[in-house]
C-alpha cells in the first residue's frame, strides 16, 4: 500500500497492522461496510465473525487477558455499538485493554436520528477508559495510535473509536505511529523510592504480615508475577490473591493461602483479618474482598501498590500508598530489601505461621462426595487433576461454578484464568474462551460454565463451529441459577423466586446441531471418563455435567459480615442472622 493516498478505512487497517494486531472480532453492518471492504482486500489481519457484538467484546477480552495484548473489536453503528456496551463495561471493571471500533452514520446525519444512529460516545463515555468520535479523516491516524496507547498504558481499559461512514471513505495520507505525539497521556510507572524504602521497613518489621495480590499484577505482565513470587519467597510471608489475581503466584507455592474474599479460604480471610501489616499489590479493596469495611483488618498497617491513583484510599485508608507499575515497584522493593539486609522477626513469624496452620487444618474446602450424584466441587477437582499436566486456559461464566473454579482449579501461571470479576457478567465465559482459543490454537481451553450463564451467549457456538475452535464447554448443570438460589436459601427464606429454569436444551443435541461433540455425565463413576474423552477430542465439545442441584458454595462471608465471621458449610449458622445493613448489599 502506498502511503500517499489512503481511504479512512485503509488507514484504519494500516494502523491496526502497525500496532501488531493479528485478529479482530467483529460483526458487519451498514456503517462499517467500507472497513469490511478494506478487510476483504488484505490478508494480514484475520477477522473472526461472531454471532452477536457482545460476544465480540468478550472474545477480545479473552484474547487480551490470555496474551497481554490489546483485543480489537469492530462493530457497526446503533445496535452494534449498544450490544457492545456490556463487554466494554466488563473490560473497564477488570482493566482489560480493548479497542472497539464502532461504525457511525455519516457526519452530516449525526444528530438527525438517522437509521442505526445512536450517541455512541455519549453512551460509552462512562463505560470506557476513553472514547473518540473522529469527524475528520485528518485526525484518524492520530486517534488510532493514541487509542492503542491509552488502552494499554497505565491501568489498561477499553477505548471506543466512533467512525462515521464518510470519514472511512474520505482520503488522506497516513501518519505512522512514530510521528504521533503521545506525551499528553503518560501515567507514572516508577514508584516513589522514599515510599518504597518506608514500605520495606514496615514489611520487615511485621509480626503478622500478609501479601494481598490482585489483577494489577497480571496486567503488569508475566514479569510482575515472577517478581511477586520472588518477593513472597524472599520474605517467607503468606500470600493471598483475589479472584482477578489468581496465577500471579503459583497455587502450589507453600506460602499461598488460596483466594480471599466472600468465597475465599478460611485461612486467607482470617489472616487478612488478624494481620498487622498488609501489602496490597495491584488489588483494589473491592467490597467482595473487604466484607464489612469497619471490621476490615482492624489492626493492620497497610501498604498499597497500584498504578491508578484513584484506587488509593477509595474504600480503605492506607498508610503507605505507592503509585506505579507493579513490576517496576516490586523490582525496586526487592532491590531495597536485599541491599538493606533486613531481618524479619523469625520468632513472631513462626508463631504467625503456626496460627495459619491451625486455620488451614480446618480444611475449609472439604466437601462430601458420597453417593452417585456428582458434587460440583468434585467435578472441578477432577477436571484440574486430569488437565494440570498440560498448559490449560480456563474461562468461566458467573455464579457458583465460577467460585468453585476459583477454589478448586489451581493456577500455576498468570494469564491462564479468564473470568468476569468486577462486573460479574453471565455469558462471559463462552465467547471469552473463543478469544483465548484464537490466541492459543494448540492449547486446551475450557469454559467452566453453568447452564444458565451458558444460555446467555450460546449463539457463539456457531462461531466456534465455523472456525473449528476446539473449545471445551464444561457445564456444571444444576438446573438452577445456583448463586441466586443459594442467596434465596440463605437470605430469603428458601423462596426460590424465578431461579429455576424449565425447558433447558438437551446440551448433547445442541452440540450436535452446531457440528460439535456433545457429552453427558450424571454419575460420579463416569466423570473421569467424560473428562478424559472431552480433552482427547480435537474439536469443540459441550460436556453436560449434571451435578447436585442443592449444593452451596462455601466458605462464605455473609453480606455485611467481617472476615472472621465466615460460614464454613450448611451446618454452620451465623451467630447473628444477616443484618438489615447486610441484606441491602449485593
Amino acid at each position, binding site marked *: 500500500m502506498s502511503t500517499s493516498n489512503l481511504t479512512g478505512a485503509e488507514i484504519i487497517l494500516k494502523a491496526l497492522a502497525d500496532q501488531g494486531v493479528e485478529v479482530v472480532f467483529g460483526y458487519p453492518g451498514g456503517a462499517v461496510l467500507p472497513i469490511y471492504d478494506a478487510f476483504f482486500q488484505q490478508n494480514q489481519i484475520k477477522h473472526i465473525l461472531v454471532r452477536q457484538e457482545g460476544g465480540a467484546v468478550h472474545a477480545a477480552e479473552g484474547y487480551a487477558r490470555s496474551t497481554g495484548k490489546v483485543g480489537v473489536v469492530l462493530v457497526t453503528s446503533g445496535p452494534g455499538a449498544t450490544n457492545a456496551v456490556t463487554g466494554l463495561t466488563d473490560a473497564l471493571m477488570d482493566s482489560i485493554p480493548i479497542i472497539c471500533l464502532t461504525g457511525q452514520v455519516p457526519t452530516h446525519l449525526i444528530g438527525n436520528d438517522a437509521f442505526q444512529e445512536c450517541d455512541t460516545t455519549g453512551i460509552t463515555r*462512562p463505560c470506557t*477508559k476513553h472514547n473518540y468520535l473522529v469527524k475528520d479523516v485528518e485526525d484518524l491516524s492520530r486517534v488510532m495510535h493514541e487509542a492503542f496507547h491509552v488502552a494499554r498504558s497505565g491501568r489498561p481499559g477499553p477505548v471506543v473509536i466512533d467512525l462515521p461512514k464518510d470519514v472511512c471513505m474520505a482520503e488522506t495520507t497516513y501518519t505512522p505511529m512514530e510521528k504521533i505525539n503521545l506525551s499528553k497521556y503518560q501515567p507514572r510507572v516508577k514508584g516513589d523510592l522514599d515510599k518504597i524504602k518506608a514500605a520495606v521497613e514496615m514489611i520487615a518489621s511485621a509480626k503478622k504480615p500478609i501479601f494481598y495480590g490482585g489483577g494489577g499484577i497480571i496486567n503488569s505482565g508475566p514479569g510482575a508475577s515472577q517478581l511477586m513470587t520472588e518477593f513472597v519467597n524472599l520474605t517467607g510471608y503468606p500470600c493471598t490473591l483475589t479472584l482477578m489475581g489468581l496465577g500471579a503466584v503459583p497455587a502450589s507455592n507453600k506460602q499461598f493461602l488460596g483466594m480471599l474474599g466472600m468465597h475465599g479460604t478460611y485461612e486467607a480471610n482470617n489472616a487478612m483479618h488478624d494481620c498487622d501489616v498488609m501489602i496490597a499489590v495491584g488489588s483494589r479493596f473491592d467490597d467482595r474482598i473487604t466484607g464489612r469495611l469497619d471490621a476490615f483488618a482492624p489492626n493492620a498497617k497497610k501498604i498499597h501498590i497500584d498504578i*491508578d491513583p*484513584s484506587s488509593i484510599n*477509595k474504600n480503605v485508608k492506607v498508610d503507605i500508598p505507592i503509585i506505579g507499575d507493579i513490576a517496576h515497584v516490586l523490582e525496586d522493593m526487592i532491590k531495597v530489601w536485599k541491599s538493606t539486609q533486613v531481618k524479619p522477626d523469625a520468632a513472631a513469624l513462626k508463631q504467625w505461621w503456626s496460627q495459619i496452620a491451625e486455620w488451614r487444618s480446618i480444611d475449609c474446602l472439604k466437601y462430601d462426595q458420597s453417593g452417585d450424584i456428582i458434587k460440583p466441587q468434585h467435578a472441578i477437582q477432577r477436571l484440574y487433576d486430569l488437565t494440570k499436566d498440560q498448559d490449560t486456559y480456563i474461562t468461566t461464566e458467573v455464579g457458583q461454578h465460577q467460585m468453585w473454579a476459583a477454589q478448586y482449579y489451581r493456577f500455576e501461571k498468570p494469564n491462564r484464568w479468564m473470568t468476569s470479576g468486577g462486573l460479574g457478567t453471565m455469558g462471559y465465559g463462552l465467547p471469552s474462551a473463543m478469544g483465548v482459543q484464537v490466541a492459543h490454537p494448540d492449547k486446551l481451553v475450557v469454559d467452566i460454565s453453568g447452564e444458565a450463564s451458558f444460555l446467555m451467549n450460546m449463539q457463539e457456538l456457531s462461531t466456534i463451529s465455523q472456525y473449528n475452535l476446539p473449545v471445551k464447554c464444561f457445564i456444571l448443570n444444576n438446573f438452577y441459577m445456583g448463586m441466586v438460589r443459594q442467596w434465596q436459601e440463605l437470605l430469603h427464606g428458601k423462596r426460590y423466586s424465578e431461579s429455576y429454569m424449565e425447558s433447558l436444551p438437551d446440551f448433547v443435541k445442541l452440540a450436535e446441531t452446531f457440528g460439535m461433540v456433545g457429552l453427558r455425565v450424571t454419575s460420579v463413576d463416569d466423570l473421569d471418563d467424560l473428562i478424559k474423552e472431552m480433552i482427547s477430542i480435537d474439536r469443540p465439545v459441550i460436556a453436560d455435567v449434571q451435578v447436585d442441584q442443592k449444593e452451596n458454595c462455601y466458605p462464605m462471608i455473609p453480606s455485611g459480615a467481617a472476615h472472621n465471621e465466615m460460614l464454613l458449610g450448611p451446618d454452620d449458622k451465623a451467630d447473628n442472622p444477616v443484618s438489615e445493613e447486610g441484606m441491602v448489599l449485593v
Partner: protein
Amino acid sequence: MNKDEPINSHTMSVLVDNEPGVLARVVGLFSGRGYNIESLTVAEVSDENNLSRITIVTSGTEMIIEQIKAQLGRLVPIHRVSDLTLEGPHVDRELALVKVGCTGDQRVESLRIADIFRARVVDSTNESFVFEIVGDTGKLDAFIDLMRPLGLKDISRTGVAAIARGTASL
C-alpha cells in the same frame, strides 16, 4: 471510614483539552460517582494550546475530595487538577446579573444598596433595574438577599472562577 468526618467545600481548577465532550466527561464523572457540584464554570483559556479551564466547587469528606481529584486526574483529556482550597490562598470571584422590579422609594433603596456593594446598573426601565455585581459567593448571596424584599425578579450567576494568589500558575 468514619461517618462523622467533616464535610468541607473545595474549589478546584482543572486544565483540560478544549475538545467536544470534555465537559460531559467531567459532569458525568460527578453524577456517576455521586459527587456534588456546587458550582461549575468553563471557558477556553489558551487558544494556541487549545486548553480550557474548569473551576468546580464541590464538597465532601477528605477521602471523597481526594477521590474526586484522583478520578478527575485519570481522565485522558485532563492535564492538571489543582485543589485551590488546599494549596494555599486563592481568589474566587463570581458575577451575577440581578433584576429588580420596583418603583418609588424602593428604587432609591435598591440603588443605595447597590452602591454599598459596588454593583453597577447595566439596564434600567421605569419599573426595573438590572444590576451587575462581582464578588465572592458570600457577597453575591448577601446582595441578593437584600434585593429580595425590594422586588427581586430574576438572577443569572456565572458560577465561581478562581485562581491562586501569588506567582503560582496551573
